[in-house]
C-alpha cells in the first residue's frame, strides 16, 4: 500500500459502519428451483453415494450455496459487502483468500422449492500480519430462505491482503497460516527405533529392562535402576490421563494449525508420554482427562503418538485422487466458474501449481466423509470449515475423521483433509440421528 492509496482510498471503518447499518441485503432469487438433475450432478462430482437425497427429494445441505451461485454470466447481484470489497482493493489489499466457512442448516431444501439469499455484514478486523502479507479479515453472513422460512445460514470470512508482488494475489498458492509445512521427523537410533517401529505398527511401546523389568520412557540404552543393557518392550494398554497440557498459539509450527493442544500423559504402566491431543478443542483438554493413544502422521512423516479423548470413534480414512477431471467436475457442479478451478493455464498464471479444489467442493467432500460414516439416517446440521493449503489437481486428498460421543442427540465429527502441502481443511460436522 502506498501513501497515495491511503490518501485517496475510502474510509474503511465508515464503510463498515454503513454496511452494518444497512442490515440484510436481498440477493435475489435462485435461477432454478431445487431440482434433481443438479443434485444428481453434484452427488456424482462429490462421489457421494448417500441414497437419501434422490430417494426423499432433498438437496444435500452442503449444496446450499450452489442454488444461488451467479453462474458464468452473472447478473450484478447486490450484497452487503460489495462496497467494502471494492474499498479494500482500493487500499491495495487486492489479494483474497477464504479462511473460514460455517454453514448451519435449519432443514434440507426440498425439490421444487425456490430459494432466495440475503447477506448482511459481519465484521472487519485487522490490519493483521499473516504469512500472505498484511491484510484485513472481512466476515459476512448469508441466509437462504424458502418463502419466509429460513432453511440455512452461512458465515464466510476472507482475508483481503496486500500481495507481495503486483501479480502475487495468487489464490491457492498459500494459506494465511503459513507456507507449506515440512514435517519434523523424530531422530531415531538403535536405542529408540523400537518405539518408532511400534508407532508405525499402531503400538505404543515402552522399553522394559530384560533383567529387572523396570519400564522407562523416554528410553535409552541402559536401565538406570540395574544398569543392564538388555531390554525388550511392552505394548502399553493405550490408556492414560493428562498430566500436563499446553495450547500452542505462536509462532507457527510446521505441519500443525494453531491453536493446538499438546499433552504429557501419565500411563497406568507408570511412565509419561508426550503427544498432540487430537479430536478435542483446546479448551476441552484438562488435567486428569482420560485419553487413549492414537497415531498421527504429518505429511509423509512417520507415525507419531498422539492422544484423543477416551470414547471417541475414528472414521475410515478416505484417499481421493484429485484428477483435473475431479477438480473441474466439482467446480462445475457447484456452479463456480472461477478459472483457477478448471483452467490449468489460468491457475498457473496466478501462481498456483495447477487447478485446485474450490471451497464448495471441499465442503461437499467434508459432508460426504461424515455421512459416509454416519449413514443415510443421519442429518447434517452444521459444517464449520477452516481452510488451509490448497488441494491441487495431481495431489491426493486424505480425509480422516473422528466422532465424539453424542451429546443431546448431536454427534460432532471432526474431519481433516490433508494433501502433500499439509492441512487443506479442518472441519467440524454436527449431525443428528447417528446410530
Amino acid at each position: 500500500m502506498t501513501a497515495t492509496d491511503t490518501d485517496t482510498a475510502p474510509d474503511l471503518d465508515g464503510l463498515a459502519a454503513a454496511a452494518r447499518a444497512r442490515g440484510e441485503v436481498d440477493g435475489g432469487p435462485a435461477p432454478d428451483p431445487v431440482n434433481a438433475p443438479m443434485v444428481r450432478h453434484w452427488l456424482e462430482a462429490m462421489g457421494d453415494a448417500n441414497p437419501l437425497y434422490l430417494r426423499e427429494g432433498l438437496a444435500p445441505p452442503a449444496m446450499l450455496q450452489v442454488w444461488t451461485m451467479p453462474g458464468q454470466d452473472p447478473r450484478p447481484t447486490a450484497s452487503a459487502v460489495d462496497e467494502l470489497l471494492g474499498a479494500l482493493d482500493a487500499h491495495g489489499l487486492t489479494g483474497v483468500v477464504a479462511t473460514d466457512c460455517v454453514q448451519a442448516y435449519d432443514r434440507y431444501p426440498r425439490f421444487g422449492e425456490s430459494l432466495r439469499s440475503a447477506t448482511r455484514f459481519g465484521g472487519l478486523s485487522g490490519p493483521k500480519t499473516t504469512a500472505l502479507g498484511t491484510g484485513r479479515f472481512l466476515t459476512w453472513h448469508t441466509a437462504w430462505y424458502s418463502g419466509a422460512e429460513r432453511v440455512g445460514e452461512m458465515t464466510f470470512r476472507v482475508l483481503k491482503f496486500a500481495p507481495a508482488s503486483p501479480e502475487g494475489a495468487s489464490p491457492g498458492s498459500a494459506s494465511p497460516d503459513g507456507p507449506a509445512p515440512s514435517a519434523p521427523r523424530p531422530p531415531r537410533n538403535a536405542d529408540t527405533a523400537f518405539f518408532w517401529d511400534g508407532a508405525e505398527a499402531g503400538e505404543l511401546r515402552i522399553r522394559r529392562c530384560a533383567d529387572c523389568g523396570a519400564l522407562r520412557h523416554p528410553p535409552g540404552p541402559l536401565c538406570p535402576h540395574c544398569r543392564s543393557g538388555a531390554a525388550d518392550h511392552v505394548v502399553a494398554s493405550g490408556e492414560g490421563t493428562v498430566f500436563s497440557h499446553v495450547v500452542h498459539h505462536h509462532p507457527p509450527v510446521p505441519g500443525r494449525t494453531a491453536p493446538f493442544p499438546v499433552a504429557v500423559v501419565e500411563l497406568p504402566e507408570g511412565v509419561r508420554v508426550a503427544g498432540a491431543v487430537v479430536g478435542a478443542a483446546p479448551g476441552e483438554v484438562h488435567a486428569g482427562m482420560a485419553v487413549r493413544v492414537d497415531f498421527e502422521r504429518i505429511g509423509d512423516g512417520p507415525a507419531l503418538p498422539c492422544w484423543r479423548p477416551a470414547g471417541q470413534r475414528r472414521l475410515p480414512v478416505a484417499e481421493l485422487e484429485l484428477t483435473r477431471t475431479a477438480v473441474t467436475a466439482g467446480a462445475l457442479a457447484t456452479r463456480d466458474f472461477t478459472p483457477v478451478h478448471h483452467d490449468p493455464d489460468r491457475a498457473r498464471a496466478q501462481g498456483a501449481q495447477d487447478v485446485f479444489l474450490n471451497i464448495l467442493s471441499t465442503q461437499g467432500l467434508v459432508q460426504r466423509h461424515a455421512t459416509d460414516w454416519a449413514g443415510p439416517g443421519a442429518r447434517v446440521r452444521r459444517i464449520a470449515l477452516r481452510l488451509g493449503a490448497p488441494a491441487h489437481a495431481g495431489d491426493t486428498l486424505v480425509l480422516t475423521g473422528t466422532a465424539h460421543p453424542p451429546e443431546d442427540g448431536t454427534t460432532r465429527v471432526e474431519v481433516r483433509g490433508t494433501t502433500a502441502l499439509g492441512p487443506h481443511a479442518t472441519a467440524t460436522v454436527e449431525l443428528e440421528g447417528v446410530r
Partner: protein
Amino acid sequence: MSRTLAGAAAIAGIGATAFTKESGRTELALAAEAVLDALGDAGVAPQEVDGMTAFAQDASSEIAVAREIGAGELRFFSRVPYGGGAACGTVAQAAMAVATGQADVVVAYRAFNERSGRRFGRAVRQDGGEPTSQSLELGWHVPVGLATPASWAAVAARRYMQVYGAVGEDFGRVAVQARRAAATNPRAWFHGRPITLEDHQASRWVAEPLRLLDCCQESDGGVALVVVSAERARALRRPPAVVRAAAQGAADGQMTMTSFYRGDGAGLPETGLVGGRLWAMSGLGPSDVQTAVLYDHFTPFVLMQLEELGFCGRGEAPAFVAEGRTALDGPLPVNPHGGQLGEAYIHGMNGIAEAVRQVRGTAANQVAGVEHVLVTAGAGVPTSGLVLGAYS
C-alpha cells in the same frame, strides 16, 4: 589450600554492547565489542587476557574473539552447555581457572543476534542427521508439537498451577515488576515503558497458560565479564565483585527444558541443587542477600526459583510476589534491572553484570545496602548460580 572456590576470584570488569532488536553487526563483532568494553571497565589490557569461557551455544569461538581483540596467547578456554543455564557457569569456570592458576585474566562472554538472526522463540527444526543425545531428547517433543521453548515452559507452568493453585495473574505480577524496574533503567529496551496487570492479561497467548508478556524479549547484543583473582581485583580500578559462591548443577532425570518425566513437574530441582550449594559455599542464607537476579525467560520460573532457593516455601511464591516483597521497594528486590523481560535477553549474562553493579553501588535502580547478590542462570535446564559480594 582449602578446597573451596569461595572468595578466590572476583569480577573486575563488565562490558556490554547496546541491547537492540537489530544490531546490524555480526555476532563476532558484538562479542569483541563487549569484551573490549569489559576490559576497559576493568582497566586491563587486551594482551593480558589469557583465558576465555563461553556458552557452548555461542557462535563466536574463543580464538576468534582472541584474534579480534589482540589477546595473543590463551592458556585456558572452556565452554558451558545447556543454553542459558551456562551463564553463571562461565564465571564459575573462569573463577576455577584463576583460583588454580590455570589463567590470570579470564573473559566470559555471550553475544548474539538473537532477534535479527536466529530467534530462539521460533519452532525448533529437526533436520535429521546422526542423532545426538540432545536431538533425541528433542525428538520426543518437537515432532508431537512441543516445538518451542515457550511450549516446554508452559508444561511446567501448567503443573505449577495445578499443584499450587497459581493463576495467570500470579505470572503477570512477575512481568509487571520486571517492566516497572526496566522503566527506570536507561539500559533497558523497555525503558520508560511499564505495563499493568491488565496489559499482561490482555496480551495474546503464546502457549497456554503462557501469554506474550510471560515471555522474555528476544534481543541482539553482547555482555562480557572479566574474572581475575580477588587479590588482583582489589588492585584494579573498579570495586571487585567477589565470587562468594559459584555452582553448576543438573538434577536426577534432567533434560533440557523437557524434564516432564520426573516428580510432580512443578519444581526446578536443578535450581534447588545449585541454590543449596551456593548457600553452603558462601555460608550465607536467603536472608543474607539484599537483591536477587533470577533468570526470567518465562515468568513462572521466577516463582519456582524463589521457592527452590529458599526465599519462600513451596507454593508461596505467588503471595510472596503479590505482597510486593520482590518489588524494587520490597525487602528482596528481584531483577532490579528489569530482567530479561524488561532489560534484554542476553542469556542471563546481563543479569550477572547487574549483580556486579549492585555490589559496586552503581546500578540504575540501586538497592540500598547491598552486601550480597544472588544470581541464577537458565531455569529448567542444567543450570548455575553465583553469590557475589564486596571485597571484605
